[in-house]
């Protein structure tokens, strides 16, 4: 008979309730052969027990079977606490065949539902034996699981912490390498900005004025991330700089550096580089592009020019490769715009790239702004594009402006009236004669000045303003040409916008307006108008 008794259960925690619930369910299912009933009784019981262990440190559960003939007539389950009475009010649960009652400080649950006595043995075995093993097994596996997940958690924590700290170290190396003492002098201005991504990214830039004659600058992107990428970056940057100090050919600089890096490159990492060397005295610009995004040349009065030449593969990939270079002549006021793929490949929430087209459009509209503003605007626009999605890669923009700020060879400031203009005419005449310029050239300059200045005077009169005019004349080398700047602080007026006159009309219907500008345009090689700092500025070039 001992085998036919359900063992006493100790319940001290919610986990115990869960385990017990499983056992009771299985035993009841065997006894009553009624799933729905078994679920109901088990659920009721477990919810009661759960409530009890809130008030009681532990409770015990005994089961008594009342047999009548071949049938089990009643199942009595008693729940008690050996130290404290079960005094809780019985919840108002109605379940057919089940009665709850508090009796002698314990809770008694009587299940009045018959089942064949031969089922009892199986039920008891299931309840007692299997459940014990199960409990043990469960406990063991729980422990194992717990231990494992704890270890995993610890490992994951270590991993991500190690990863984070490695990224942070890499990031620190990267950011500390970026110079911010941007050069700005009479001939060259440079500004750059790097916005690091949270994880991936190995962008860098560098610059240095060498021998007061050259501006060396570089924009690069190291493959990979973390400390190895940062170290490669540091190595590349230092190598480039040290070679650039003595070597004034960008192809030679990159060829040297590539060989050094390829030799040591065990991690198969590489660097894309756009390297430029600008002769700040002459404007001669030499560059080598090693697998990097093409840079742009921006001019005040023409469309951006994309420097599409590729001079070799990414640096670090092919030991001994001989890189090539390109050279072009910058004119005063032109800009070099370099960047990394973090700009053009920035993605919005729809995963659309910022794209070359958008960048080209943007730089064309902002090229007239200050360098700082150009760099900031591009960074800002890319940021707006990326808004809502995480910045996937470093974003780097570097821009250089070349200017030939020499003093004009002839300079005069005067008022917008005909007396002052006559004075200018005679001074200009003497200046060009003294410099032994051809009479025809002088005549042309005088005609041009007459047209432009009388235009300003006429507009000044209309507006009754005391307009100041400033004339700067630059004589180009070898008498190859004359550059003239004419500035006035009158109302905004672009004479170049005047329509060309119809020169085929007969005398009677011939208007005279517009002819002057038409003549000027015909005599000069180039002429541009700009409105800056409340001044009209006309710049023209007369080839001699």
């Amino acid at each position, binding site marked *: 008979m001992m085998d036919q008794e359900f063992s006493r259960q100790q319940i001290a925690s919610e986990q115990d309730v869960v385990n017990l619930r499983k056992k009771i369910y299985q035993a009841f299912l065997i006894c009553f052969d009624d799933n729905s009933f078994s679920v109901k009784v088990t659920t009721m019981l477990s919810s009661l027990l759960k409530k009890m262990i809130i008030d009681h440190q532990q409770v015990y559960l005994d089961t008594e079977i009342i047999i009548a003939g071949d049938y089990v007539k009643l199942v009595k389950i008693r729940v008690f606490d050996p130290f404290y009475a079960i005094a809780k009010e019985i919840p108002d649960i109605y379940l057919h065949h089940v009665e709850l009652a508090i009796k002698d400080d314990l809770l008694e649950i009587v299940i009045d539902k018959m089942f064949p006595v031969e089922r009892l043995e199986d039920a008891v075995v299931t309840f007692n034996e299997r459940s014990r093993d199960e409990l043990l097994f469960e406990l063991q596996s729980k422990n194992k699981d717990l231990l494992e997940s704890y270890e995993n958690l610890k490992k994951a924590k270590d991993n991500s912490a190690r990863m984070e700290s490695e990224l942070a170290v890499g990031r620190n190396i990267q950011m500390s390498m970026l110079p911010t003492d941007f050069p700005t002098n009479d001939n060259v201005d440079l500004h750059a900005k790097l916005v690091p991504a949270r994880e991936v990214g190995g962008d860098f830039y560098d610059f240095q004025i060498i021998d007061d004659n050259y501006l060396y600058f570089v924009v690069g992107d190291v493959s990979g991330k973390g400390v190895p990428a940062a170290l490669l970056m540091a190595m590349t940057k230092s190598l480039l700089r040290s070679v650039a100090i003595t070597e004034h050919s960008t192809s030679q600089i990159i060829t040297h550096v590539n060989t050094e890096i390829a030799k040591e490159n065990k991690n198969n990492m590489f660097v894309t580089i756009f390297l430029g060397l600008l002769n700040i005295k002459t404007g001669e610009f030499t560059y080598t592009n090693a697998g990097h995004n093409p840079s742009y040349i921006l001019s005040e009065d023409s469309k951006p020019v994309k420097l599409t030449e590729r001079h070799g593969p990414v640096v670090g990939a092919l030991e001994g490769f001989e890189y090539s270079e390109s050279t072009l002549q910058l004119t005063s006021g032109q800009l070099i715009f370099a960047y990394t793929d973090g700009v053009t490949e920035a993605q919005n929430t729809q995963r659309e790239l910022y794209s070359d087209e958008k960048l080209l459009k943007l730089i064309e509209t902002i090229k007239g702004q200050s360098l700082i503003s150009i760099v900031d605007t591009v960074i800002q626009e890319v940021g707006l594009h990326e808004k809502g999605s995480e910045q996937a890669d470093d974003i780097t923009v570097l821009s250089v402006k070349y200017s030939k700020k020499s003093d004009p060879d002839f300079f005069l400031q005067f008022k917008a009236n005909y007396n002052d203009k006559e004075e200018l005419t005679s001074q200009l005449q003497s200046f060009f004669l003294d410099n032994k310029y051809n009479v*025809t050239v002088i005549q042309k300059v*005088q*005609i041009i000045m007459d047209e432009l200045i009388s235009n300003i005077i006429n507009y000044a009169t209309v507006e009754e303003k005391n307009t100041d005019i400033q004339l700067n004349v630059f004589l180009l080398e070898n008498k190859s040409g004359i550059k003239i700047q004419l500035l006035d602080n009158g109302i905004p007026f672009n004479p170049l916008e005047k329509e060309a006159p119809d020169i085929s009309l007969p*005398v009677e219907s011939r208007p005279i307006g517009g002819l002057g500008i038409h003549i000027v345009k015909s005599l000069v090689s180039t002429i541009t108008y700009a409105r800056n700092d409340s001044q009209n500025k006309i710049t023209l070039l007369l080839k001699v």
Partner: protein
Amino acid sequence: MEIEVTNVKDIFVVHVNGFMDASTSPIVEKEVLKLIDEGKTKLLLNLKDVSYMSSSGLRVFLAASKSIKAVQGKFIVCEANDVVQEILKISGFDLIIEVQDKYEEAILSF
């Protein structure tokens, strides 16, 4: 700039010495229109000593041509130097006013 007016029979020759720009051209214009007002119908503008001329000079030519046409007269320009000729060409004025290279030819073509 100096202006000298001489005459060969009934042809009145305006000789300008200097340059014709926005300041000086109005003086030439005034002189030429005065002659037309006085009833002269044959006018020759001799540019032999005009070093350069801006569109303000063209204004003079245009005013002179229009006024003289009204009185069935004739206005001729001669002896323009290379730069002035270029200005005439650029502006298309070589097609709408009579331009003669040489002073003598100009006198003969009245």
